[in-house]
């Protein structure tokens, strides 16, 4: 019955996407690749912020860290890009480990600003240590067209993040993460080691952006501090998750697909007003569907949290 459909549909979509590069134009592949990237980013943000309520306002920092780690390995050490991407993810997780300890002790807006700050600090540091990073000049990678293989790896990463989200949300680990959002003091007094849970969620949420960052660096062939640490990217992830429904499995996916396509298909036609449209869209999402599309469905049809 519907359970089989629920399983069959994603598999069918996955197969179609796997075959897509054969028939698609270069641009279509690249655009789909971007959607995968946004699914990774939004899904990862959802893991820490949607579940524990710790709003990360600097999540793009992990993307940038992964991009630089990957790009340095590729350009300076001549690593193959796939290995560099994995190490990029690892670097982001390492960064999350280092800063997670102090920052996750901060609450509410304090955590948000600390993360925002982390992003700015990383950008400044990357600019400063120019020997390694090229500073403001950025880093150019040797020319190599790997868009199609990167498409597959990014796609797999998106699937991994989504499956991970499903596993977490349907587990008691996920429930425990939610108690942090609900009432951290009570959670601790009930024997939940909130510090460790937060940290785990944080580490998991850093890996995806790290890998995505390194893949993007490889695909683009050039990175500079300004373009891999933009606040706008963090905001876009957040809006995507909010649009789809935070704390849900499919919300980030839905948000990423709908918003990216909207941006690419509709707004690109109106260069001077499209930022205005984006602003208006954010306002509309917040006012009209604060729980996101799936959140609304959940409430209205009493669907389980695990959609």
């Amino acid at each position, binding site marked *: 019955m519907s359970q089989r459909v629920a399983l069959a549909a994603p598999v069918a979509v996955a197969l179609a996407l796997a075959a897509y590069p054969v028939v698609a134009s270069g641009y279509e592949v690249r655009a789909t690749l971007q959607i995968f990237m946004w699914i990774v980013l939004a899904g990862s943000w959802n893991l820490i912020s949607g579940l524990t309520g710790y709003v990360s306002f600097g999540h793009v920092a992990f993307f940038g860290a992964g991009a630089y780690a990957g790009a340095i390995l590729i350009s300076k050490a001549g690593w193959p890009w796939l290995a560099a991407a994995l190490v990029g993810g690892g670097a982001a997780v390492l960064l999350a480990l280092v800063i997670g300890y102090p920052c996750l002790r901060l609450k509410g807006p304090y955590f948000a600003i600390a993360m925002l700050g982390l992003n700015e600090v990383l950008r400044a540091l990357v600019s400063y240590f120019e020997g390694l990073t090229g500073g403001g000049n950025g880093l150019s990678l040797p020319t190599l067209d790997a868009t199609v293989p990167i498409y597959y790896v990014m796609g797999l990463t998106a699937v991994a993040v989504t499956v991970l989200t499903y596993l977490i949300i349907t587990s*008691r680990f996920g*429930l*425990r993460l*939610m*108690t942090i*959002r*609900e*009432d951290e*003091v*009570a*959670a*601790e*007094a*009930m*024997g*939940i*080691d*909130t*510090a460790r849970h937060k940290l785990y969620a944080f580490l998991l949420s850093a890996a995806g952006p790290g890998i995505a960052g390194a893949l993007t660096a490889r695909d683009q062939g050039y990175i500079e501090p300004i373009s891999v640490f933009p606040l706008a990217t963090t905001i876009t992830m957040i809006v995507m998750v909010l649009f789809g429904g935070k704390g849900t499995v499919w919300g980030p996916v839905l948000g990423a697909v709908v918003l990216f396509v909207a941006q690419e298909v509709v707004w690109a036609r109106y260069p001077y007003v499209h930022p205005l449209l984006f602003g208006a869209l954010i306002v509309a999402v917040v006012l009209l569907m604060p729980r996101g599309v799936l959140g609304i469905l959940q409430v209205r049809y009493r669907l389980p949290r695990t959609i």
Partner: protein
Amino acid sequence: MATPVLDIDRLRKRFGGVTAVDGVSLRLEAGRIYGLIGPNGSGKTTLFNCITGVERRDEGRVVFGGERVDGLRPWEIAQKGIGRTFQVIRVFPELSALENLLVVTRDRLAAARERADRLLRFVKLDGLRDEYAGNLSYGQQKLLEFVRMLMRDPTLILLDEPAAGVNRTLLNDLLEAVRQLRDRGKTILLVEHDMKVVMGLCETVFVLDHGEKIAEGAPGVIQTDERVIEAYFGR
């Protein structure tokens, strides 16, 4: 004398100028129900907070089951077997009543579910098990908090005003449950202003005033203690 379950030695906690708990020592033995009473602001809740690690004590020791627990994180203390409820309710509002219970144990899921169902039935919340806890009434939340605490099967139970706001009929069931817990060897320390509850339930009562312990003894004895009457009962 058996080794105490909880041994508090000269515990002290200050907030700025106010000394909320001022050198309090208590010993609790296994399988008994203790009462902790005292005027409003005498430091009862603060004492609970210090025992459970929610507040950091300034001085003194807390020994639980032969181990020092002061200085540990709240979750470590909870895992060692101290359970508590809060005076100001703290359920997880956007988790369902059932999830509120499931989330606090590490038991196998099936076992946890069975236990949670039993506890919800007990406080007559089984009809609301899938409702968000935040949508329950004050008293319902209070009951939910009580059974959530029981989910971990703690050896020492700290109850901060369990009767406040709870309907009397239900309260009787609750008190009966507390007695049963005691009979199963649990130790209970409860803060309560309802004297019927305290007198009917507790074997030993401690009285705090201005952060200091001013009396300790059987309920009947306490009720006639001049200092306690002066500070607490009035007239």
